[in-house]
C-alpha cells in the first residue's frame, strides 16, 4: 500500500547473513531489504529460520557472518553501538514480554525516560497517546499481569511505538493468542501499516500477509526461497515448495 516509496533507498539491508546454533545451520546467506514505509511479511514453516532472521536484524541473535545495514551503520559489526540503533527499531514478541514489575504506563515510559532523557510527564503524555491509539487508554495504571493476551500485545506495540522507531519488527505477534482475540492485535497492526510505519512481520496469519503487506518473503530451510508481491505469491507462486506450503494454509 506504500508502493510509491519503493524507489527510495532501503531502510534496512541484510547482506549475506549467516547464523547457526552449534551444528545446526539456521540461516544461509540471506539477502533482503526493506524500503521506508514498506510492510514485509515473512512466512514459512516452523524452524525455517524466520524468527532468527528477525532477531538478527536487531542483534538479539548475533549473526555469524554478514551485514545488517541500518541508517548507514552495520549493526553486525563489532563494537557498533547497538543500543543506540535498537532505539530506532521496535520489536514485538510472541510472548509479549511486558515488564512484570511495572504497570502499563511505566512499561511504556521506561525506555523514553531512561534513554531519551525525557521528563516523566512528557513521556507519559506520549505514552498515553500511543495507548489510546491501541485502544487501551482505560488501562494505564493496570498491573500488566491482569491483562488479557490481546491487551498485553497491544501494550507491547504501544511500548515499542513510544520510542518513535523507524522500523517495527513483529515476531509472531498473534501466535500465543486465542483465535477470537487475534483480530484486535491485527487491527492495530493494520492501522499502523496504514500510517506508513515500516514493518517486518513474521506471521502465520496468511490473510494479513496477503491484504496488508507490500512484499511477502517465503523462507524454507534457512534461505529465502521466494519473495514477491502478495498477489503473485498467493495466486501464482513459482516454487513448488511455496505452493506446497501455501496449499496447507489456504486449503
Amino acid at each position: 500500500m506504500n508502493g510509491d516509496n519503493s524507489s527510495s533507498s532501503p531502510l534496512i539491508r541484510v547482506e549475506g547473513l549467516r547464523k547457526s546454533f552449534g551444528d545446526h545451520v539456521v540461516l544461509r546467506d540471506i539477502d533482503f531489504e526493506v524500503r521506508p514505509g514498506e510492510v514485509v511479511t515473512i512466512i514459512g514453516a516452523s524452524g525455517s529460520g524466520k524468527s532468527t532472521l528477525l532477531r538478527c536484524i536487531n542483534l538479539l541473535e548475533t549473526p555469524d557472518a554478514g551485514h545488517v545495514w541500518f541508517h548507514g551503520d552495520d549493526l553486525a559489526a563489532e563494537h557498533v553501538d547497538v543500543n543506540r540503533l535498537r532505539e530506532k527499531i521496535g520489536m514485538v514478541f510472541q510472548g509479549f514480554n511486558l515488564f512484570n514489575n511495572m504497570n502499563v504506563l511505566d512499561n511504556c515510559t521506561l525506555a523514553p525516560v531512561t534513554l531519551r532523557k525525557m521528563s516523566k510527564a512528557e513521556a507519559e503524555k506520549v505514552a498515553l497517546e500511543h495507548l489510546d491509539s491501541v485502544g487501551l487508554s482505560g488501562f494505564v495504571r493496570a498491573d500488566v499481569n491482569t491483562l488479557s493476551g490481546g491487551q498485553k500485545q497491544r501494550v507491547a506495540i504501544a511500548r515499542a511505538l513510544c520510542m518513535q522507531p523507524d522500523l517495527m519488527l513483529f515476531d509472531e505477534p498473534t501466535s500465543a493468542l486465542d483465535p477470537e482475540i487475534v483480530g484486535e492485535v491485527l487491527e492495530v497492526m493494520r492501522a499502523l501499516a496504514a500510517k506508513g510505519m515500516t514493518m517486518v512481520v513474521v506471521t502465520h496469519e496468511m490473510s494479513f500477509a496477503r491484504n496488508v503487506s507490500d512484499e511477502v518473503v517465503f523462507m524454507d530451510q534457512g534461505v529465502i526461497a521466494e519473495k514477491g508481491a502478495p498477489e503473485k505469491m498467493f495466486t501464482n507462486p513459482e516454487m513448488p515448495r511455496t505452493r506446497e506450503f501455501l496449499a496447507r494454509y489456504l486449503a
Partner: protein
Amino acid sequence: MAEAPDQSRQSGKQGRFARFVLADHRYVLLGTSVVALLGMQLSSQPRSTLSFLAHAYALEVVLYYVLVAWLAVSVVAFVIKLVTRRRYATVSPFTRPKSRHVLRVGSYVVWAITLVLFVDRVVLGIAATWQLATTATSRPSDSFASALYMLWQGRQIFWTGITTTVELAVFGTIIAFFLALLLVFLRIQQVDRPDNDLVRFLKVVGSGFAKVYSAVVRGTPMMVQAGIIYFGGFGIMRGTGLSTTEINGIWSTFVAGLVTISLNSTAYMMEVLRGGIESVDEGQTEAARSLGLSQWQAMSKVVFPQGIKFAIPGLSNELVINIKDSSVLSVIGVFDLMFATTTVAGIYYRQTESYMIAAVCYLVLTMVATKLLSKFARHFDVKAGPVMGTSDAKVVKKPKKGKEA
C-alpha cells in the same frame, strides 16, 4: 465412635486439631478418653514441693474417679457400638440430642481436670525443680535439675554466648548481603557487543573472580576458613610490627569470626541472588534490550527487581543458617553460644545437659528468626520457602522456553 465424620469438612481455615475437637463426633468419647487417660497418668506422678493438690488429697481422688467414670462411659458406648453396628445411630442412647449435649459438656470437664493435673504436676514440677536448682549450693544429681542448675549458674556465660551468636549471625548476614550484591553484579557480566576491549577484559576477569570465589568458599568448611582468616590475619599484623596485645585489641576473635561468617555467607548469598536473577524469564531482558536499554539498564530496572523477589526466601534462609553455622567459629575462640556451652560443660563436668541447653537456645533463636523473616517476606509479597534447609540446597531454575527458529 459414632458415625459421620462428614461434618468435619467445614472450613479449611481451622487447623486439623481444631476441626477434630469442634466438628468431629469421634472427639467427644474417643478423643477425650485419651485425654482422661493422660490425666490419670499425671495423677499417678509424684507430687512436687509446690503442688497445691498435695493439700487437697480428697479433691484429687474425686477428680481421678471422674476420669475413671468417663472412661467407663466410653467403654459402654463402645460396646453398644460393637453390638449394634449399623443401627448404632438410631438405637444407642448416646446419640440422642440431649445425651450428646451432656457428653459434650462432660468432655470439657475432662479437659479441665487434666489441665489442672498438668499444672499441678508438670508446670509446678518444673517450677519446683527450678527453685531447687537456683538455690542449690552444688549440682543436683537429677539430670533435669542439673541442667537447670547449670543454666542458672552459667546464665551470664550463656547470655554472652547468645548475644555474640545473634550479633555474628545478624551483622554477618547483613554485611554478606551487600557483598553478595557486589559479587553477583560481577558474576552475571557478559560481554556485550558495544563493549570496548578494556570493558570486555574487566567483565571476564570480574565474572571469573566471582566464580572462583564461590567455588573456593563453598568448597571448603567454614571451620577451616575461620582458622585461615584468624591466624592468617594475625600473622599479617605481626608482620607490621605490632605487639601481640595490640593485635588482640584490633584483630579479636569476634572480628575474625565476623569476617569469616560474612565472607562465607557472601558466596552462598551470591548464588541465591544469581538463581533469582536467572529465574527471571529471558524475554524480559530481550524486551528491554530491544528498546535500546543497555545490559546494565535492563538488569537494574527490569530483571533485578523481579529476581530479588525470587531470591528473598533463600536470602532469609541464610540468616537461619548463619545462626546455626556460627557455632563452628568457637574453634578460633569466639565466645558464641557454642563456646559458652563447652565452657559450662567443662565447669560442671556434664556434657549432655549442657548441649541440651544449647540445642534449646539455638532452636528458639532459629524459630524466632524464621517467624520474623516470614513476616518480612510477606511484607514484600513473597511466599516464604522452606527455611530450615541447608545452604547447599540447589537453586531451582525454571525451564527455559524453547526458542523457535
